[in-house]
């Protein structure tokens, strides 16, 4: 039985240290498209982004107009039926895509940035700075996320900006730890020593010398954060801690749940936004899974040939 003796972190750092040379990037893109999971994930995300960008092209109904029959079943006019006050569920779903996606992407970008700054700074500076930043990271890792989110969201004025703020505060810790250990493995490299000899300031070394070597890891962090944020944002709104006047999939779910849509027979009112959230989460998760397989050859699905040589 042949087992490739490659540890997970070493493989990842090899690819990420390849730098921005064209061949490495081309190879990466080719592998990405050759991977079925990555293709599926990308397709889902492109579809959702398209709907978020051009909702008017997908539906002609006004999502807020309560002008239709009450709790109609799915039909050609109303693909997913109507709500308790006579709004078209399909158009609410379509128009809710934009804010849902904005929250997820903004939070994931900021949280990834935060985790990068905190993780890499801790690793590069070492000593007291490292210890205190690591303790901060550990504290945020241990405090249970959803209870903390609930308390924070409760006290702050409800709305998308609060949602973004509280989710940023709570989603950086896990990736900061990953990026710290990657940063530690780089610390003794020659190119950092030469930057220090040149007399560069730490902030320059961190942002210009270290961070660019981590692009693929950062992309993976972004995807990892996004998977969680999709679930947590929808969960908070589902619990009624969002702003019901803002149209997102989570607030749609909340309204449907509050009106017992599943039990009263208006199934698609609740199922459709749930399915949409699941699809968005799955899109990010598929890409993330593929990234893991690409970055770490040891985890790739074994080929048949290898199987036959097994005892």
């Amino acid at each position, binding site marked *: 039985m042949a*087992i490739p003796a490659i540890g997970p972190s070493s493989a990842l750092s090899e690819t990420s240290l390849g730098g921005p040379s064209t061949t490495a990037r081309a190879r990466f893109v080719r592998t990405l498209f050759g991977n079925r999971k990555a293709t599926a994930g990308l397709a889902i995300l492109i579809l959702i982004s398209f709907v978020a960008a051009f909702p008017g092209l997908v539906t002609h109904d006004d999502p807020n107009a309560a002008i239709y029959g009450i709790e109609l079943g799915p039909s050609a006019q109303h693909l997913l039926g109507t709500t308790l006050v006579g709004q078209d569920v399909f158009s609410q779903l379509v128009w809710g895509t934009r804010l849902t996606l904005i929250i997820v992407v903004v939070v994931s970008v900021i949280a990834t940035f935060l985790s990068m700054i905190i993780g890499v700074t801790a690793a590069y500076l070492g000593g007291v700075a490292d210890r205190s930043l690591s303790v901060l990271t550990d*504290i945020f890792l241990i405090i*249970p996320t959803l209870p*903390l989110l609930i308390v924070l969201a409760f006290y702050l004025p409800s709305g998308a900006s609060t949602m973004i703020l509280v989710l940023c505060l709570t989603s950086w810790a896990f990736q900061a730890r990953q990026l710290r250990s990657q940063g530690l493995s780089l610390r003794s490299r020659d190119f950092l020593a030469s930057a220090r000899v040149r007399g560069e300031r730490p902030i320059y070394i961190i942002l210009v010398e270290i961070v660019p070597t981590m692009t693929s890891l950062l992309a993976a962090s972004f995807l990892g954060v996004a998977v969680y944020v999709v679930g947590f944002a929808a*969960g908070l709104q589902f619990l*009624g801690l969002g702003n019901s006047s803002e149209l997102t999939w989570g607030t749609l779910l909340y309204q449907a749940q509050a009106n017992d849509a599943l039990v009263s027979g208006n199934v698609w009112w609740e199922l459709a936004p*749930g399915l949409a959230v*699941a699809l968005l989460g799955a899109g990010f998760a598929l890409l993330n899974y593929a990234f893991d397989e690409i970055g770490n050859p040891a985890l790739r699905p074994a080929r048949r040939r290898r*199987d036959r040589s097994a005892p």
Partner: protein
Amino acid sequence: MTYLRRRLGLFLLTLWAALTINFALPRLMPGNEAQAVLATLHGVNPAALHALEIEFGVNIHQNIVITYFQYLGNCFTGQLGVDHYGIPVVTAILQALPWTLGLVGIATVLAFVIGTLVGILSAWKRGGRMDAFLPPLLFIVSSFPIFFVGLILILVFGVILNWLPIGGNYSLDATPSLSLPFIGDVITHALLPGITLVVVTAGLWIFSMRNNMITTLAEDYVKMGRAKGLAPWRIMLDYAARNAILPNLTGFAMQLGFVLGGAILVEYTFSYPGLGYLFYTSTTLHDLPMMQGLFLFYTMAVLVCVLFADLLTALLDPRTRDA
């Protein structure tokens, strides 16, 4: 035992952070929400009311530092005030606790055992039928919002097939007793929320266990075991899995916060009257003492489990002892 001392320090720091968040939040937010909430409490015992006034900074005309230490003292003696109905927060939490403990405890242990076993087996037979199918499937399912899985189960088994109850902890007409029919009733009510939790959380363990296992199987001592001609199952369990499971143990405690959060959503989806449902109702009733008490309780629960996992790791992994 530097390792354990460090972890104990982290325990205390985290607890202090959670307490401070609780103390600071009501003071940082605009509006006199806390004042309004406390004004609705009548005929509450004065000591409890005073504890709440300290916690939320209502009717307090003294140095905030003194108030802060009074608040910390109150928390350590378990004086968390009273809830919306005038019942002590601690009593209300303890009443709901058994339901959550039963549901989440059993579901989490099941998910851990199933997930770890599937992870071991799919790494062992890598590229086999199970490996090609189960890990990716469960990885995707675990990316679903947990309540979505719950909603699907409600729709299929509750509404369409009408096999299982979709809400509550036991039938409305049942009287709680230790009889077999009542226990059966409780179990049927716990089935759908329990399955939801297992299905979503098992994926977490499978994924990390499989990856650890793959890395461990490449180690020299595993090759040595093979060269000695040991039975395959001994190499799989005694040589590889035994070492690969260590990161999962620490992960278990870390993931517990995630599982408890998921349980809040599951209990809400199924109207299951445990701590999570209590948490939800405390936000809708604007029951601040209850909400903050639960936040503390959840943090404590995770902290105790993390500490326990640390002890276990120190016991199982000699490397941590002199680290």
